[in-house]
Structure formats: C-alpha cells, structure tokens
C-alpha cells in the first residue's frame, strides 16, 4: 500500500510562474492601502488622497505667495479673479517583501493534496509578485531580490528564484533590509514549535514592518490519516519515530497542531498582522484572494481566511 505522503521534487520555477500568472489573473489589481507614510517617497501609483507629487489631478487651490509660478493653472485662474494652483494627488509606491519557505519540509505532498506545499508556496509568492508589480508596488525577496518596482517583477523574482543563489538561502528569512512601513508576506508551513516562530517574529515586529503570515498546510498534516504501525520520518532532520498504533495519537497531535496555529493567529491578531491558512487540497486562489484582501485592508476576506483555517 502506498504511503500517505511523499517527498516531491522542487517545483520548476518557470512552470510555477505560469501557474502563478494564472492565479493572479483571477485577482483584481492589487492596491495596497498605504496607511503609513514612508519618508522615502518614491513615485508610485498609489493615490495617497493627499496633494503631493503625482500625475493625477487632485484639486485646485488658491495660489499662496511664494510658490513657483509654474504651478499656477492659468486656464482656471482666468475664470475669475483668483489665482489657482493645480494640485496633484500624491502617489507613492509601497515596498512589499515576499518570502517563501525553502525548507525541506515544504516538499511534502500527501495523496489527498493536489500539489506539494513548496509548489503551492511558490505559486502564491509569484502570484503576489505579479499582482503587486502590476499595481506598481515594489517587491523584494529577502536575500535574493532588492525591492524593485517593475512591470515584470514576477519574472524577475522567478529568475532570481531559479538562480543557483536561491539554493543557498537559509531556511529562515533574512529580514535585515526590511524597513518600517513595509509589508512582509511570509509563506511557510510554520511547523516549527510556536515558541521558536514567535521569537523570530518578535524580532521582525520590532522593525515596525507589517507582517502577513500565510500558512501552507498539507491535509495529511491537519487530518492525520495515519493508522497502524507507522514509522514517521522528519524530512528535514531525518529523525524517525515509530508508532505502534498511529491512530491512537491522532487526537493529541491534532490538538497540539491546532494549538500552534492558534498561537500564531493570536499573535498576529494582537499586532494587527494577518494570518491565513491555505491547504494544498484547496485552491490557491482562495489564499490569494484572502491575502489580497488583507493587503488592501478589506475585511470581507475574513471569511475565506476562516474557512481556510478550518
């Protein structure tokens, strides 16, 4: 009888990109709500609903002495006795750091799942990259890609991930370059004991960045369909553990598994971060839409997240 789960070869990056595009096409242009003003203003396409440097008309206002004459809108000023200045809406690009867990455990895929966790994580990351770069955001990948605003951000990211340098990336994200007001999307299975994960997250939280955690889970990990005499092997460490009657441990395992997830979720909720779960037997679009909602601050996506976590 075949085993429940197996280790899968790493996903081909270009293939993952194609699938990511497909997923991204299902999601509307991503507009991140920039609630925080970043001091280092770089022109972008986000209307900040304030006057500033930009290309879109925002308002006419009376000329204040001292301003450059070049700003005066003569056509409007000719209508009456005042002199008006054309204000543009301030547009600013946002920096979003994306990170997919490259660890060995992500290669797991059970029979009930459609893809491996690694594949799903990559697809989600690239889809986000596609969405964000389409809407002019700057996307970066810690250790691999500096924040860049480009139409072809997803391709760049895919190229970077396909490079040999990507193989040397550590299992934990190197978030030294993350500045305040940046958004960080971490796609991982978060299977480390929650205290370790939370310690890492604390370090990031001190930087003031806003985190979005997306847990990719395999149904076998969540349901625990094992029974009988089973020897479990950790794909990362190779540690083996033999259970005489595996089904006896299902309940306890599920308890601790969900407790870990709840700990993460509570942590995120406290910091107003987002936390979502995507099971590999569900559609990737669900997670994408959920994350999209989180990035745009639309609470409607809560339901999807809740279902994904169930």
């Amino acid at each position, binding site marked *: *009888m075949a*085993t*429940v*789960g*197996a*280790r899968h070869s790493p996903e081909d990056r270009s293939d993952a990109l194609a699938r990511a595009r497909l997923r991204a096409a299902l999601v509307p242009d991503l507009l991140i709500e920039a609630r925080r003003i970043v001091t280092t203003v770089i022109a972008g396409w986000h209307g900040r609903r304030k006057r500033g440097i930009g290309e879109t008309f925002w308002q006419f206002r009376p000329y204040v002495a001292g301003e450059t004459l070049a700003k005066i809108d003569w056509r409007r000023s000719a209508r009456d006795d005042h002199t008006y200045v054309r204000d543009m809406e301030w547009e600013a690009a946002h920096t979003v750091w994306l990170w997919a867990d490259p660890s060995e*455990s*992500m290669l*797991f895929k*059970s*029979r*009930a799942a459609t893809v491996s*966790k690694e594949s799903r994580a990559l697809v989600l990351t690239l889809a986000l990259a596609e969405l964000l770069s389409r809407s002019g955001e700057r996307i970066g990948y810690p250790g691999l890609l500096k924040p860049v605003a480009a139409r072809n951000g997803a391709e760049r990211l895919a190229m970077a991930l396909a490079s040999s340098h990507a193989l040397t990336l550590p299992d934990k994200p190197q978030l030294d370059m993350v500045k305040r007001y940046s958004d960080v999307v971490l796609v991982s*299975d978060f*299977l*480390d*004991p929650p205290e370790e994960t939370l310690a890492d997250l604390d370090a990031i939280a001190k930087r003031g960045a806003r985190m979005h955690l997306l847990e990719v889970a*395999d*149904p*076998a*990990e969540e*349901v*625990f*369909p*094992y*029974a*009988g*005499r*089973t*020897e*479990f*092997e*950790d*794909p*990362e*460490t190779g*540690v*083996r*553990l*033999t*259970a*005489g*009657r*595996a*089904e006896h*441990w*299902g309940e*306890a*395992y599920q*308890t*601790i*598994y969900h407790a*870990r997830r709840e700990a993460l979720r509570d942590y995120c909720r406290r910091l107003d971060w987002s936390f979502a779960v995507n099971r590999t037997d569900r559609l990737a679009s669900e997670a994408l839409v959920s994350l999209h909602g989180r990035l745009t601050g639309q609470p409607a996506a809560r339901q999807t997240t809740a279902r994904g976590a169930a």
Partner: protein
Amino acid sequence: MLGLPLSFAAPAILFGLAALPVIWWLLRLTPPKPRTEIFPPLRLLAQVMKHEETPARSPWWLTLLRLLMATLVILALARPVLNPVADIATGDGPLALLVDNGWSTGRDWDARMAQAAQLVEKAHEAGRTVALAFTVAPDNAQVALAKPTDLLPVLAAATPIAAKPDRVAAVNRLAAALADAPPASLAWLSDGLAASERDETLSAINALDLSEVLLFDAGIDDLRAIRGVDNTPTGFNVRVQGPDGLSTGADPVPVSAFDEKGRLLAETAALFEDGSAEATARFEVPFELRNDFATIRIAGQQQAGGVWLVDENSRRRRVGLLTGQAGDLDQPLLSPLYYIQRALQPFADLVEGKTGDLSVDVPALLEQGPAMIVMADIGVLPEAASQALAEWVEDGGTLVRFAGPRLAATAGDDPLLPVEMRLGERTLGGSLSWTEPQPVAAFPGNGPFGGLEAPREVTVNRQVLAEPGLDLAARTWANLADGTPLVTGAARGDGTLVLFHVTAEATWSNLPISGSFVEMLRRIANLSRNTGAIQPGNSGVEAEALAPYRILGADGELTTPPSHVRPLDAAASATPASYTHPAGLYGTADGFVARNVLVADDTLSPLGTPAFQAASTVFAYDSGEESDLRGPLFLIALALLALDTLAVLWINGRLRLFGKGRVGMRETGHVAAALALAVVAVALTVAMPALAQESDERPGDAEIVELLETTRLAYVKSGNPDTDDVSAAGLWGLTRYLESRTALEPAEPVGLDLETDELTFYPLIYFPIDITAPMPSEAAISRLDAFMQGGGTVLFDTRDQLTASFAGAASSPENERLRDILRGLNIPPLEPVPPDHVLTKAFYILDRFPGRYDGSPLWVEASATQETVEDRPVRSGDGVTPIMITGNDLAAAWALDESGRPVFPTMSSDPLQRIYAFRAGVNIMMYMLTGNYKADQVHVPALLERLGQ
C-alpha cells in the same frame, strides 16, 4: 495415536516439531514491518508521542497463530492418515478373503466392501495375490488366486443376497485356491452370525495353511429378524428374533405391515422380555386388513431378515373341490365344478378329488391342508369323511357347499350346513308356478359380501329353503328379492360353513355365470386360511416350478429378480434360501409363494471369537474410509495464512472499516479489495473443481462475421499476379457498377486461395483459367466441388475467345486446363444460355453475354425440361446453375482503375460492348442472388391483366 484412528506415513518429519521453539523465538524477535511515512510536523508529533513505547515484538496471539501454522504444515508433511487400514502386510503369502454376503449384510454392505477394497489395495501395495470367496455363491463357483487389481471390479459388482451363507463351501473353495500356495492370511469379513455349521466352518478354516486370521466382525447386537408370522383368527402375530444373550431392557422393536403396493397398513411393536431373545409383535386389526398384509418389516433394519414376505393372504389358497358323482369328472363342461374352477383358478391352487369316492377323496384333500373346500351338491357324506370334514372346519377350514337336487333331498339332517334346511327345493317361475324368477337383493352391508354390487341380471329359478329361525337373518349373507336367503354362512369352531342355496352350475340360476360369482367366491376365500404349510411340491398335483416374481434384496427391498435366480421347485423349496433361490416371491403377480430367509427355529447367535489355530485378530468394520489428512491440514494452514495476512493488515492499520477523513476512505477501498481477494482465494481453494465458463468464441470468428455482414464478390487467386490484378480490378468494377445501378451493394471483392480459404460465404466465385498458373490440387478441386454441391456457383472464364476462334475451341490450352479441372468436379449437363433462360432477363434484357471479347457463349446447366411451352416466355428452371463457363474474359471488360476508367479496351469497336459486359455481370449476380424468382416475374403482366388493371 491418542486413541484416535490416526497414523503417520512419514513419522520422521514429526521431529520437525522440535524446531517450533526456534520458530517461536524468531517470530518473537521479528515484529511486523512498520510502514514508513514522511511526516513534516514530526517535531509536533514527537511532543505528544514522547512516552510512546514502540512495540518491538509481535503480539503473542500472532506468534501463536504462526506457530500453529508451522505445526500444521509439519503435521501435514508427516502424511497423517485417519482410519488406517488394518495392517495386513505382515505376511508374504497370498491373502484369502472370505466375505459373508448373506441376508444380514445388506445393512452395512458398503462399509464391508470398502473394507474389502482396502484390504485388496493393501495387498496390491504389498504385492500379494488374493483369493476371494463369497459365502453366498453359486454351487459351481470357482476361486483362484488373482492379482488384487483384477478383483476390485469383482468387489464393486458383488451384492449381498437374501440367503443363508454356506461358509463351508466357501472355505473349501478357498482351500482349493490356496492348495499350492505358501501360508496365507485369511481375512474373514463375517456377518457376525454363528450359523448352524459354525463348527464345521471353523474346522475347515483350521484345515487351511494359514499364517494369520483377520476376523472382521461388526457384532449383531442391533440385529433383529423376523422368523415367522402366524395369522391367527384373532390377530396377526409376528415372531421377532433378537440375538442370543440380548441384554435386558432392549428397546421395543417397531414392526410395520405393508400391503402389496407398499402402503403402510398397521404398526405395532415387539417387546423383549428379560432374558429372552424372542418377542412377538401382534397386529390386532380386522381380518380384511390382515389379509392384505404383504410385507412385514422391522423398522430400521435394512436387511433381508427384517422383512417377512406374506403370501397366504388373498392368493394361493389351496382349495379342494369335491363333487358327488364321478361322472361329473368325465364331462368337464357339464361338471358342477366347472364354473367354480374358472372362478377360483386365478388366485387359488385347486385340488380336486381324484376318484369320485368321497371316502377316499376327502381325507386325501384334508391331508394337503386346504384353506377352503368347495362341495357341489353333495347330499350324503360317508361318516368318516363327514367326521374328518367337521374336524377340519372346527380347526379353521372353510367349507363352501352348493345346493342341488341331492342336497335338497337329504338336507334335513346334514351337520355341515350353516342353517337348518327344509327338505326339497322351491321352484320359482315354472310353468306350474305363479311366482316370477327372483332377482338378487342388495347384499347386507355387514356381511362378508358387504360393499359388493349385487348382480341385477341374476335371477334364481330354483333354490333350497332354510327353516326360518331366530338366527337365520344373522346367518344370511345374501338374499333374494323376496327375502329368502341365497347364501348363508355360519362359524363353526375356528372355521366357517357357507351354503349357496343354488347349484354350482347354471341350472337353478344364472349366478355361476355372472361376474359377481367370482367376487363372492373371492370374498369367501379371503375369509379362509390355509390349515397347513404350503410349499410347492407338497400339493401332489404336479411338480410345479414357480418362476421368480420378486426377489428380496439383502437391503430388505423387493426387486426384479436377477439373472442368477432359478425357478423354485419342490426340491429347492425344501432347502434354505440360497444363491440360486434367494428369499422373495415366486410365482406370478396373481399368486405367488413367499420364500423367507429365516425359518421358524432359527436363532441369531453371535459368532464370538472362534478358536483359530493361526494367530487371529478381530477388527471392527471401519466406520469410514482411510482418509488422507494432508489436504485438510494444508487447507487449514492456508486459511491461517490468510488470517495472518489479515491480522498483519490490521496491525498495520490498513483494516479500518471506517477511516477518518477522506484519506482513510481511500484506504478502506484498498482493504476491501484485499479482503475480497482473500475471500476469492479461499473460495477457490475450497471449491477446486469449480469450472470456468468457457467462451465459445473461436479464433477467426471476427473475420467470419465481417465476411458475412455484406455480400462480396470473390475470385480465385490463380497465383499469377497479373491475372489476379485483372480479376480484382474487374470484380471491383462490377461492384461499383452494381452499387450504382442496383440495390445490391457488395463490399470489396475477395481473392480466394482454394487450398485454405473458406468458400461458403460467397454466392459466386469467379474462376479465371490461367495456364501459366499451376493446376489446382486435388484437395482444392474437391473443395470447389463441395462448394458447388452446397449451392454455390463458379464462373469459369477461359478468356480464350480470341485465340480459340482461330485455333478451334477444342485445342485451346485454357480449354484443356478447364477440362482437367472439371474432371474432378460433378458437372451437370451444360448448354449455352438459351434465349428464354432467366439469365437473359434477370435485370437487363440481354441476348448475349460479352466480356472483353464477344462471341463465346455462356454455358450453364441444361434446364431439366426440354419441352418448352410455346407461350411461356421463360423457363421455370428450379435451382440455380452451379457452374457457368465463358471465354469472353469478363473481368477484363469490367476492370476499372482507381478513377473509374476502363483498364482494357474491348476487342470490338462497338462502344456498347462494355456496357453489355457490365449488364451481363449484373444479370449474373442478380440470377445468383434471386434465383428463378425473376422467372416468375414474367407472369406479372398476365396477373395484372387478370386483376383488371
């Protein structure tokens, strides 16, 4: 072994059981292999599973299961045998088999024969010769030493016979067979009975040169037999015999009585008194019922001794006939006994007085113990005869008297009359009387004639009259219409007196010539009972030999007599039942003598253990055959193996009937499949002879179906590719033409190899004669002939019209070849297609059949009727010609290339010739497929005209 009838053929292998502890140790150390699963959240799992002790050993019950399996395999390898045959391989001389096949062996004959067959087979294995003697055998039976395998059919054919065994004769036969042989082993398959000649048998056996004696004795404790019946006036007694030394408190023996057709009439039981081996079962039923008893059976005794055949019921009573005048005997047709004889003959032995002198005849008759004596008009009996008759009646005889002038004259003081008589007779309807002849009134229901239909046509002219008395009515068995008695009867002692108030001949009345007379006499005979034992031969009348009618099988059932049974004559009936005269019914269906196995003084004494001189052993008959236990043991081990597989599956968690979640459901499917596989495997093992349903499909069926689906034109492949191409193209062209012009849409033409291809699928085979091709073989021509005889048609095309026209038809090489071919065929007389032939009208109206050439006639079978009616437009011609011959090279004219253009030019400049060639082809095909149907179509105008259209 352990009290079980169990032995091992290879006991050395049992030492393998010593290895069981090792196996146990190994099994304990080898746990079932776990399933390895990759599990990323192992660290989480490790937190909850920290205190889990992983079982490193198999569960004890699994070990036990496997040990049991190993034990079973070891035991099976040791070839255990249940019910091993008695070991007779000790001697090396011949084996003498003495088999009792007498009356008591029918109940367990199969076991005896299985035992005998086993002994013979053992002897075969030991290479010993066998002499086989049955104790019930023909007197001239021969016994000789034979190969054991030759005796098995003899054993299979042997049957027990309802007769008493003659062991001395059988032992003597064995002695003759073993005369020159080394000391033999005697196996005596006895019936357990010590017959009367036990000592003689023993001494005869001891006289043999024996090395050992194996006595098989099943005991006779449950043997019950009937050794006699006694039909007393008040009841029917059955004497049941048990074995000597019957223990006290033996169960009552249920005894049942059946009539001739096997219907149960009565049941009773015989109770053995303490210490007595004999018991009596008494049927207390009315005598009419008793007289119907044909078979008395002891329930549960499937042997001949438990059955008693009764013959003295309604048939074969001895009836004495007496008449007063010797002169009556000289004129048989006028004898007063004539009608009585005719009436009684079917069911009674008739004994007549010989001398006419009553003082001699009566004692002579009485000596033979008749059941009934009929006296016709005897007035005065001699005193001694009268006395003897009276005593005989007192003892149970039935005396039937008929009136007559003499009786009427002397009736007053005759003691042997049921009622007091008046002197003289009464005349009814005479010339001096005013009374009418009297008919017979209905018989009283309570009398012996009750239920009989009174004869309406019988009238009585004269009768003797009884004195009126108080008991006259009670004694009257039949009345005349005016109330005077016709038949009276009375009991006298154990016997009966009956008087017919008319004569035995048809002078006083026409009663003796009516059917009722026979019935009445039969009723009276039913009442009577024989007063002495009858056996054939003691009648003194003649030495009659009774053919066997039904023979009692040793299983207690009546069967048709086997061929070895001889008619029973006087000499044979005096001896006990034997091979040639076993127990059964002898005679005919209307009357027979029963012959039973036991006689009145027979007892059933057990054989015990005779004092043999040779070493002797007593065995019981084995309850079952020797059976090899290997198969069952291996089967059980296999079942355990399946169980073990299931257990391992269960331990590994793959046997969950309700999995958790979707992943588990998939597992369940696999488990169900595995379970089904196991069940199927077990079922296959158990039901080995299950037969697979064979498909009746044969290779080549698909091709045949394809060929049959549509009509096809066919040609014979000559072997010359050029000719074959022309033929193929020609038939293809004709096919296209047929498709476009007619409703016939043939499929692709087929080239045939006469040697191999099946020809029957094609209505017409085109056979181009090619002299460059080899001559077809004999087999091919005979196949072609069979095709033509079976209704097919061959179109021979010599394609030589052009050359033949120059050189003359006879010398054309194609013609020569055609003649060679036709020499092997059954060819009917031929003629060129006459102008009124159906071929000229089958589709197109044609007067010639051109091909590439024109001018060669088309030869067909000559029509049977040469005289043609003038006004008939076409010949009727039943049947289709089996052969057509042309020289016009039809295929070349039909041949079309891929684009539909003709391949060959016609030899004539006439552009219509090709059209006509196609039309000829169409006509030929239509003629092939429709036969002479078109010949009838020509009548359509006449029919329409007649219909007034």
